[in-house]
Structure formats: structure tokens, C-alpha cells
């Protein structure tokens, strides 16, 4: 007596043998025509995705270039507290350095009478070039001597020096001028922090300052940094911490971190076996695949950042992601819209002018809030609630540039991992869980 399975097998086998091997009409198309189509299809396969990758890299280069250009154009730093603080620190350093140089000023003063009193000697002597900057404070201080002896120590450099100091023969005026120059030079030293030739200020300043235009008593002979308001070491201003910031960002992602191949997935069992009447397998093969094509995810959202300290911050928000998948050759498509809530922490680790750099890590829970399948797309879901939640985690390195104190731009290269769920819809994240994106956006620093 035959079991039910054997009976079923019989009618199925009979049907397969009799109707399955019927050869109907011959194909109308010749193989030459088929070959043309095959080659054409093979040549263009994947070209769209490659094009998108180039767009991605071009966009990344453009963003990096723009950020670099913005750093180089040297924006108005007066609005930036950190830059002014840095300038003050530099000015303080310059003031300290300039103190020994101020003591060398009598060299110039001492040189003048020699030239005017005894030009003959000056002409007879061989001019020895002397770099005043090499006259250390010890030289000047240890001498603390009349100008004459110092002039002798400085050799006959006074000839050239006096010419650069002006042609006036009045030593008194020259002395006053020299004192004024001293004060002026201190100002200039303070104002121009980048002037590496600060030690030459006696000469440079005397050129720039009209002699006798300012009263000599305006500047004391020896100026301490504390007496000079420009040399006053400025306490670094405490940067006001803006605790809340709101950002809006988006990205058009590329393919995942994998090899970027177009993915193929089997519709059903990967291995198919055929058996004979005795149940013996006579051949098996891998099932041909159905091609799933995925558009690049489009994502955008808004984020809220709370700065615990100038370094540490927490971030959350709402992010919408649109995923489009279609199968070929039928073209049946699936459109899904996910809403995700990220939660992350980050640190600001560097500042450069108006730019700051930070690193962050986050986790995100996304829920499908809108979905549509065209007819023929394989799906196991009859309603949105059947689609499982999508978990993801990632890390980002970010650079932001504050155009004003409240408004700035940012770019965040991000690596994300989407935890695959076996019952998740067929999306690009399911096939490529690792993802690299370049997140671009604007940020408002509120209060």
C-alpha cells in the first residue's frame, strides 16, 4: 500500500516527466542578437553605482577643500574669544622677550655723540658691523656705564647706526627721540605679535617715529610690562560655554565598506536537488539569483547637543532615512522610510581658530514609519508594525567651523554598523551592514 507521500510523488513526477520536457516552438530571436544584448548588458552593469562613488569622492574633496580655504582666508578674529586670548598670550611673551632689548638702547644713544663730536676719528677707524641684537642684556647691564665706554665696546658701528637713526646733530633731541621711540617700540611689539624682529625695535622704531612729535616724558626709560597697558599680561578670558546647540544635517551615502559589488540574493532555497523515482539525487545546483538593486540611502535630520563641559557633550535628535530597493528585471520596488533616534556622546579635542574638531560615538534605534511595495516585490510584511526595529551604532570624527558665534557648518565622516536582523526587509543595510557616510550640516549654538 502506497503512502500519501508516494502517491503525491507519483502525480508530481508524472506531470514533471510528461509536461516538463515538452519542447515547443523555436525561439524567434537568433543567438547573434542575444549575444549583442548580453554583451551590452554586461558592459553597463554597475555603472550607475560607480558613478555615484565618484560623486561621493568629489563631494568629499570639495568639502575638505572648502573647509581648508575657510581656514586660510584668516577671518575676522575679533569676534572669536579664543583667538584674541591667544594673541594676548603671544603679546605677553613678546613683552618679556623685549625687556633685554630695551636695555641695549643706550648703545644707539651713545653712538650719536661720537659721530657728531669726532667724525674724524670715525672716518679713520674701520667700520665694524655690529649686530645690536647680539648685544645681550648682560652686556648692557654689566656695563651700566657711561655711553662712551659702551660706544667703545660697540666699536665703530656708530657711524652706520647714526645714519639710520637720523641726521640730527642735536644729541638732546636724539636722546628724547630715542626715549619716545622706546615707548613706541614697546607698543609695536605688543601690537604685532608676529613680528619676529622685535629685538631690532630701537632701529626700526626710530625710522618710523617722527622725531620730537611726542613728549619725551610720555615714556619712562625703563618700562616694565606691568606699567605698559599693552604689555600687561592679559588673563585669558573665560570662554563662555554655549551649552545648547541645534544641528541640521544630511547625507547621501555611498555603498558600504564592502567591495561595492551589486548584490545578488536568492529568492528561495539556494540549493535545489532533483531526485529520481527512488529518491536518489541525480543532480543539484545553486539556484540562480534574483538581483536586488539598492539606491544610495538618503538621510537627513535634526540633532540637539548639550555641552556638559567645553570638552564633553551629549547628542540626540531625530533622523529620517529613505531606502529604495528594486529587483530586476521586473522592476518591482520597495520604498521604506525609517525614523531613528540617535543617542551619543562626544568630545571636542582640538580648536584651531574658528574651527573645532570632535569625536563622537552613538547608538541609534530606527523604526519604519512609512513603507510601500509595488506589485511583485517579495515581502513578508502586511503592515508596518511587522517590520522589525533597526539598531545601529557608529563613530564619527567631525570638524565644525563657526561662521559667527551662533552659526556654523560641520562635516562628520562617520562609520556606522547596522545590526542585521534575519527578519528585516531586504535593504541595502541588510546586505552591507558596515557603512561610511559623510554627514554635512549646519549648527546653531543657542545659549
Amino acid at each position, binding site marked *: 500500500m*502506497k503512502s*500519501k507521500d508516494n*502517491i*503525491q510523488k*507519483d*502525480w*508530481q513526477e*508524472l*506531470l*514533471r516527466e*510528461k*509536461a516538463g*520536457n*515538452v*519542447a*515547443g*516552438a*523555436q*525561439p*524567434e*530571436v537568433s*543567438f547573434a542578437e*542575444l*549575444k549583442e*544584448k*548580453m*554583451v551590452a*548588458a*554586461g558592459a553597463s*552593469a554597475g555603472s550607475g553605482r560607480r558613478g555615484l562613488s565618484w560623486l561621493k569622492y568629489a563631494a568629499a574633496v570639495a568639502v575638505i577643500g572648502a573647509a581648508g580655504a575657510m581656514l586660510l582666508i584668516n577671518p575676522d578674529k575679533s569676534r572669536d574669544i579664543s583667538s584674541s586670548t591667544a594673541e594676548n598670550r603671544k603679546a605677553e611673551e613678546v613683552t618679556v622677550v623685549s625687556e633685554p632689548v630695551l636695555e641695549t638702547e643706550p648703545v644707539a644713544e651713545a653712538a650719536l655723540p661720537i659721530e657728531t663730536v669726532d667724525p674724524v676719528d670715525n672716518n679713520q677707524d674701520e667700520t665694524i658691523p655690529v649686530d645690536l641684537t647680539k648685544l645681550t642684556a648682560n652686556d648692557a647691564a654689566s656695563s651700566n656705564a657711561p655711553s662712551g665706554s659702551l660706544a667703545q665696546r660697540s666699536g665703530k658701528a656708530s657711524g652706520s647706526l647714526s645714519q639710520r637713526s637720523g641726521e640730527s646733530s642735536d644729541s638732546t633731541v636724539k636722546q628724547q627721540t630715542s626715549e619716545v621711540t622706546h615707548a613706541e617700540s614697546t607698543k609695536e611689539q605688543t601690537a604685532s605679535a608676529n613680528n619676529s624682529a622685535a629685538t631690532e625695535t630701537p632701529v626700526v622704531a626710530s625710522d618710523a617715529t617722527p622725531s620730537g612729535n611726542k613728549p619725551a616724558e610720555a615714556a619712562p626709560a625703563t618700562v616694565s610690562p606691568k606699567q605698559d597697558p599693552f604689555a600687561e599680561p592679559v588673563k585669558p578670558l573665560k570662554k563662555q560655554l554655549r551649552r545648547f546647540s541645534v544641528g541640521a544635517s544630511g547625507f547621501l551615502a555611498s555603498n558600504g565598506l564592502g567591495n561595492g559589488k551589486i548584490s*545578488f540574493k536568492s*529568492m*528561495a*532555497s539556494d540549493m*535545489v*536537488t*532533483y531526485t529520481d523515482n527512488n529518491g536518489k539525487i541525480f*543532480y*543539484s*545546483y*545553486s*539556484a*540562480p*539569483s*534574483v*538581483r536586488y538593486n539598492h539606491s544610495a540611502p538618503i538621510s537627513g535630520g535634526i540633532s540637539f547637543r548639550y555641552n556638559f563641559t567645553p570638552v564633553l557633550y551629549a547628542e540626540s535628535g531625530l533622523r529620517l532615512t529613505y531606502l529604495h530597493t528594486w*529587483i*530586476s*528585471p*521586473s*522592476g*518591482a520596488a520597495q520604498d521604506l522610510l525609517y525614523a531613528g533616534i540617535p543617542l551619543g556622546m562626544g568630545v571636542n579635542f582640538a580648536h584651531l581658530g574658528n574651527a573645532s574638531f570632535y569625536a563622537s560615538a552613538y547608538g541609534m534605534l530606527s523604526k519604519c514609519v512609512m513603507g510601500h*511595495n*509595488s*506589485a*511583485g*516585490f*517579495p*515581502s*513578508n510584511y502586511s503592515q508596518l508594525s511587522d517590520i522589525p526595529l533597526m539598531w545601529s551604532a557608529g563613530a564619527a570624527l567631525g570638524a565644525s567651523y563657526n561662521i559667527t558665534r551662533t552659526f556654523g557648518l560641520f562635516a562628520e565622516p562617520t562609520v556606522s554598523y547596522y545590526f542585521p536582523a534575519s527578519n528585516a526587509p531586504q535593504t541595502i543595510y541588510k546586505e552591507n551592514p558596515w557603512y561610511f557616510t559623510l554627514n554635512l550640516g549646519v549648527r546653531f549654538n543657542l545659549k
Partner: protein
Amino acid sequence: MDGIEALEQAYIKDGAYLLSVCRRYVCDPATAQDMFQDGFVSAYLNWTKFRDRGPGSLKAWLSRIMANTCLMHLRKRDPMHQASDLASVPMAAASDSELADGIAGVRDEDLYNMILELPDMERTVLNMFVFEGFSHREIAKTLGIRESTSAMRLYRAKAHLAEMIKDYEK
């Protein structure tokens, strides 16, 4: 063997059979010709996935590709969610043994034509279940229907087939 060359030989040797596979799914001769061409293009694009396991394996692989190509086309038309004409469904199918006996007495070409006359949804499930070896679960997953729906459509296909064989015997 080069992919193009192997496919050319398969075209010459099994082209008519592969076209009949397409027709078994889509019925319409012109559409079947289109599916045949699409199937060959798909085979060419997936050639690296073909594993030669001896004689007949390429034919079986190509026939599966043709079937899948046709399924994609049918999904687009979405016959799975069309309302069925319950009035045309036989009240009770013949037993499996009676069906097997009936099938044995019908000429191959006539049996093939009977399958083509089945409604789209029933013919699709019958093709997948009998000729491709899918389970109802796999059919349900592939077509986006419930397993019970797949089983019901197979039952109706069998009933229709038995009825046509009965008419054929008369």
C-alpha cells in the same frame, strides 16, 4: 568553456525547451519570447555563479533562470492578489491516485496545454511546486502570500487539471 560559447550551445540544444519553460509560466507566446531573452541576459550576467556538475546541469540552471525571470514578470502583474473566480473552481479535486492515473493517459503536449489553460495564480503555484520543487513556505515567501494560500491554489490547480483530464478522456 567561455560563458558565451556555453550559452550558445545551450541555445542551440535546449532553446526550444527553455522557451517552453517560459510559456508554461506566462502563456502568452510573445511575452514568453521576451522572458526567454531576458533569461539569457540574466544567465550571462550571473555566469560566474554557475557550477558545472556534469551533463544537464547547465540546462537545469538555465531553466531555473527562465522560471525566475518569468516569476519576476508575474510579480509585476501581481496575479497572486487577483480575485479568483470561485464559481469556476471545482467543488472537489480528484484523489492523487486518480490524478496520477489521469495524467498517465494524456499525451505530453496535451498535458502541457492543459497547464497553460490554468488560471495564472494556480499555474504559477503549480509550476513552482511541481517543476521547481519549492515548498509552500518558499512559495509564500517568494510570492508574498500566505502558505495556506499557496496550498489552496495548488489544490485548485489540481482540481482544475483533473477536470480537464476528465473532459479530455471523454
